[in-house]
């Protein structure tokens, strides 16, 4: 049962979804997420699930809307510009409080971009990109193992909070192959009941899934209710991985693939006397504010490493206590940091503060 | 069933009616006219003065967009 299998990130996420009880996937091909679609195409029928290749990403997310309204665990996978097409309906999922899992295997942008990996969809997933006051829960895996575990978790969070949940990965994580221990199959009978689902009003009052409340007052009430939900989520669902934080004077903040690369050099830097540590956000929303508590006692600078021109760095600036300097190292457009490059950044900063 | 011996009541809910006159225009016996009175929404509502001649054709109810007309036979 703890057997390790070799899988790509896309495949591991798809298999984990099925083990979490997902029985509906609609998707439109886009590099570098298409393998997720292909995996679901052969795997879902094996478990009597429903796979549909839709005619567009817009159609895919709306098919998910329908399956979710019917009470099924449902998932879509896409990338960057494809996810951009889904934003309106993601906002509708938030307003109707429907669960659903959206996997974004990001590629370089803006626009059509290219198929190299990026982290420049951080804003798209955590600060919108649809209309209105809503939040997606966003999880950022950094390994094929986490592609599996966090996708599995996403369904539980989506059902518990009646909210869409996103997995934000990138092309590298989607395509690379690593050993993974897959989660156990959920017994479908153990999945949370959904008494609110539209399944035909037999023996009960009829259910409504309304994208728009009927009155102006109800719209405000809905916003208040959503806000309360998000405060609960912020308090309860922050996730991060700390490394060497207890005495760190230079703290790297990085998620996903960037964190993998930084992780390569931290031990070496430590061995050379550099008091470096790292906060690796695993929940991108809610942003792990608690990770920064009390760090002002010893942290003298932050280095935000991200594969973008600067997105998560804003949240670090907003969150870190006091006015500790925050530096940004990164670029968008498909640029990847190297261990050497990261190490040089650490060294450079360390020389300034030591 | 011989309609000629039945009494049919054309029951128009005057609060639902919006005075579109569809029923007035299709009644073969011209039994329905807009009232001079207003309902609470501000519409002149359709009303029947005398439904003795009603044959129960149901044209009025079929045309009504408000589901405001029911026909009761006894």
């Amino acid at each position: 049962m703890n057997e390790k299998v070799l899988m790509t990130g896309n495949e591991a996420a798809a298999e984990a979804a099925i083990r979490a009880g997902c029985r509906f996937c609609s998707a439109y091909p886009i590099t570098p997420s298409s393998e997720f679609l292909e995996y679901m195409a052969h795997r879902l029928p094996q478990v009597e699930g429903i796979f549909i290749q839709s005619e567009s990403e817009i159609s895919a997310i709306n098919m998910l809307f329908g399956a979710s309204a019917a009470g099924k665990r449902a998932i879509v996978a896409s990338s960057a510009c494809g996810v951009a097409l889904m934003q309106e309906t993601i906002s509708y999922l938030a307003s109707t409080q429907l669960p659903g899992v959206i996997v974004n295997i990001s590629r370089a942008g803006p626009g059509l971009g290219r198929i190299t990996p990026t982290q420049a969809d951080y804003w798209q997933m955590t600060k919108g990109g649809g209309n209105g006051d809503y939040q997606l829960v966003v999880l950022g895996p950094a390994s094929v193992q986490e592609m599996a575990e966090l996708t599995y978790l996403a369904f539980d969070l989506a059902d518990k909070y009646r909210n869409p949940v996103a997995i934000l990965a990138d092309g590298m994580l989607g395509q690379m192959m690593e050993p993974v221990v897959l989660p156990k199959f959920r017994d479908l009978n153990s999945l949370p009941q959904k008494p609110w689902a539209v399944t035909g009003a037999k023996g009960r009052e009829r259910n409504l899934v309304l994208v728009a409340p009927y009155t102006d007052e109800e719209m405000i009430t809905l916003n208040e209710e959503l806000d309360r939900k998000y405060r609960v989520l912020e308090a309860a669902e922050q996730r991060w991985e700390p490394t060497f934080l207890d005495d760190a004077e230079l703290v790297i903040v990085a998620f996903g693939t960037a964190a993998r690369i930084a992780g390569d050099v931290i031990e070496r830097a430590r061995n050379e006397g550099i008091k470096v540590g790292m906060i690796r956000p695993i929940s991108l929303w809610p942003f792990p504010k608690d990770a920064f508590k009390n760090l002002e006692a010893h942290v003298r600078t932050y280095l935000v490493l991200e594969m973008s021109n600067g997105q998560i760095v804003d949240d670090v600036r907003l969150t870190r206590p006091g006015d500790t300097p925050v530096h940004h190292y990164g670029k968008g457009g498909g640029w990847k940091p190297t261990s050497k490059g990261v190490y040089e950044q650490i060294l450079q900063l360390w020389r300034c503060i030591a | 069933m011989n309609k000629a011996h039945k009494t049919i009541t054309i029951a128009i809910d005057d609060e639902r009616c919006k005075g579109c006159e569809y029923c007035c225009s299709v009644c073969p016996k011209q039994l329905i006219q807009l009232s001079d009175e207003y309902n609470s929404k501000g519409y002149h509502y359709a009303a029947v003065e005398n439904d003795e001649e009603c044959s129960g054709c149901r044209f009025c109810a079929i045309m009504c967009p408000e589901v405001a007309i029911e026909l009761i036979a006894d």
Partner: protein
Amino acid sequence: MKTFIRPSSMSENHVPYCPGCGHGIALRLIGEAIDELNLLETVIGIAPVGCAIRAWRLFKFDFTQAPHGRSPAVATGLKRTLPENTVFCYQGDGDSAAIGLGELMHAALRCENFTVFMNNNAVYGATGGQLAPTTLIDQPTVSYPSGRDPNVIGYPIKMTEIIASVSKKAYIARVALNSVRNIREAKKAVLKAFKTQQRRLGFSFVEMLSACPTGWNMKPLDALKWMEEKMIPEYPLGEYAVTEGLE
């Protein structure tokens, strides 16, 4: 004994539309069909953006709304998940033939086993009377006040003909809601559409020509006349496809 009553699948709410609006007639026909076919406990309606967004108010069964144009995709997810239920979309002309044209075409191409009712009133009512894909040539709208000029904005779209040409297993019909006779024919089409779904014979699509007196800037009775004189010649009524096995 009542010889004509509100369908029992309909609620007590007042019809929330303008005087003379065809939506009220169309939705009542759907309610009548649901009663006659005993679908109250299994039916799920999908009401998207447009005046249709309020359709849920009129019924007692499960309803979901949908983003603009996307009901056929929502219906695909819903019906494939719950194949024993009866699922229908109730869309306007903008929802089905403009923003939602792609989703509707592909649902028809896939011969999805649900029913789409398209209310065609040749104008965008909910947003104040703009041009619709089905607006007639020379018909004035607030976005093209001097009338639709095909050299500027193209020709009206004939959805029934288009769906009939792409959907290989379907019941496809165009009906009108401007006269007692036509409404009776429309009711038959609604029943056949639902039966097509019940018997798993494929896709079903009924385009319903409908009055929008407000959007046309006409009195209701004049709107009915305009439908007779102008709309029906442009949009011929009839059954355009009937799947094998329906009758």
